[in-house]
């Protein structure tokens, strides 16, 4: 038998042992910094912004009058501003629907039909655009869509210039060239936000066991019925998650409408203009409340449809 030499446990070990006996303290130490960041910096600034929207700007001095008033909101509901809101919301809705329609088949293929190697290739392909600068990609699209641009050349080679012209001659969504039309803006938005739609849908589909599809087919459902009654309901939370990204990102974006599109403003641009050049921070704040309200309504609607039941 040997005598044990009592060595003092190391500092790290003593710390670990102390925290092991006080799990609440450990939890507090781990969670307090991120929660404070979230609570104070994130939510705090949001509420400061909301408060601003209930102030108004003094027409004469151009200074913010710090008194409660709804006059800024009255201004928000002027026809010109309502136009901006509707234009942005419609664009966001169109981008979201198109992204869901384009993203679903890709996500389905990724989740169901690929081996591990092919899946990695797809992940890379979907994410790769996110690695390069957003501005570079938007300007690249500007070149693609310009009057003498790649797409125009492509149509000319196919002797389809008449088709492009016919599309551009359409009222409202058309324009002098794709790069100054709503169609062009829509294409760029769709391209930029598509990964944010594909990945959540793919994750949702990945969680659907293959045996559900077998069972549906076994019970007599043809593939269309299986898609409608089993796959779509179970992928719906993923589609909603993806649409939250595409919808809210489109609602708030102010760069793409500035580069690709006409001079007609979108919400993001309106916020930019009002808080910058005009110095009308209350109206800018009121404008930025709009996407929050639209998202709240959208989420309530999605919840009522049962989007989160399967979570």
């Amino acid at each position, binding site marked *: 038998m040997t005598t044990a030499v009592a060595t003092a446990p190391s500092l790290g070990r003593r710390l670990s042992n102390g925290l092991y006996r006080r799990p609440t303290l450990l939890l507090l130490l781990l969670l307090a910094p991120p929660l404070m960041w979230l609570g104070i910096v994130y939510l705090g600034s949001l509420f400061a912004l909301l408060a601003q929207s209930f102030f108004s700007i003094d027409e004469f001095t151009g200074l913010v009058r710090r008194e409660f008033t709804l006059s800024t909101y009255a201004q928000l509901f002027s026809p010109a501003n309502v136009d901006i809101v509707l234009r942005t919301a419609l664009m966001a809705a169109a981008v979201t629907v198109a992204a869901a329609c384009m993203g679903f088949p890709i996500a389905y293929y990724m989740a169901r039909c690929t081996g591990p190697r092919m899946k990695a290739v797809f992940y890379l392909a979907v994410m790769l655009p996110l690695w390069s600068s957003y501005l570079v990609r938007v300007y690249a699209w500007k070149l693609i869509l310009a009057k003498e641009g790649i797409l125009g050349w492509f149509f000319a080679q196919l002797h389809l210039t008449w088709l492009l012209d016919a599309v551009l001659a359409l009222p409202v969504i058309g324009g002098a060239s794709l790069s100054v039309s709503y169609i062009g803006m829509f294409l760029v938005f769709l391209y930029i936000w598509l990964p944010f739609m594909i990945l959540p849908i793919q994750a949702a589909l990945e969680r659907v*066991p293959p*045996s*559900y599809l*077998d*069972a*549906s*087919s*076994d*019970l*007599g*459902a*043809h593939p269309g*019925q299986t898609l409608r*009654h*089993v796959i779509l*309901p*179970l992928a719906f939370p993923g589609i909603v998650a993806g649409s939250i990204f595409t919808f809210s990102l489109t609602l708030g974006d102010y760069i793409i409408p500035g580069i690709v599109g006409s001079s007609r403003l979108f919400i993001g641009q309106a916020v930019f203009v009002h808080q910058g050049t005009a110095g009308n921070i209350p109206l800018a704040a009121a404008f930025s409340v709009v996407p929050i309200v639209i998202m709240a309504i959208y989420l309530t609607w999605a919840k009522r449809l*049962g989007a989160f*039941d*399967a979570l």
Partner: protein
Amino acid sequence: MTTPAVEFNGVGRHFGSVRAVDDVSFAVATGEFFSMLGPSGSGKTTCLRIIAGFEQPDTGDIRVGGRDMKGVPPYERDVNTVFQDYALFPHMSVADNVAYGLMVTGVDKAKRRERAFEALSMVKLEGLENRRPAQLSGGQRQRVALARALVKKPRVLLLDEPLGALDLKLREQMQVELKALQRQLGITFVYVTHDQAEALSMSDRLAVFNNGRVEQIGTPEAVYENPETAFVAGFVGVSNIVDGAHASRFIDGAHAIAIRPEKMLVLARDDEVPIDGYRAANGTVTDIQYHGSSTRYQVTLDDDVALHVTVPNRDLSGRLKVRQAVQVRWRVEDVHRLRNGSS
């Protein structure tokens, strides 16, 4: 002779270089309870999936109710499946799950509700129609899966280890109920299991699978009492398998043999009395396992062949001890000559 409910003719299915199913042929009679028994990876589940239409055979053909199933998708086949993981749709109520097969084939709402309730009462699940699958116990989910597959009154019901996830008591109870249900409905059951006791107690006939091949098909009695290969002898129940080099005292010629432990007697060497029709060999008790209802002795014979002998525990007065000199006896007709199996 009526058409068989299911027919396999030289069916093969390969995954890469793995032969999951290799030249399998059998026929299941209408109204029969047919089991496919085998260890995991033996091809039994692949055969079931071929009947359901989830897999296509690479060679051979299958018929369901006399009709060739080549190119027939699962949703056009008159068979329904109870899945191992039940595969209940989590976003639907129990009633909607059961009525699903009727809904997709266009049965009107009132009619399908009525038939779903009927199916649920058949599996004794009244009153749970509005629950979600997540709110049910494992046994209840199993019954919902059964009701969902039975509601369309298929020609053949396929069951893929349906009782595997249940605990022993519940499993035994479900075995009795399943068998009763099958008799009452007259539907052909094709039942996949790795549990030999389950297959023996429930089946009219069973096929023993090993390495993608069928080793033996027959009634439970035939398969148990007359195992044809070493694999069957060892997988269905317990057997003493003696290779050809040591089998001369059991059989003429150098053939591997099998004999069931409960078909043999073991006696203390000093009270040996010759019994008509029995053969004998001397040995020593090398291990004793107490099993409650019986005791299993391991007896090592003089030529180092170890045999298991199971003795019912009628009373414990005559128990033997380890290292005791004993005599083992058996009847010649209980010795089964084995042919070479695929293992």
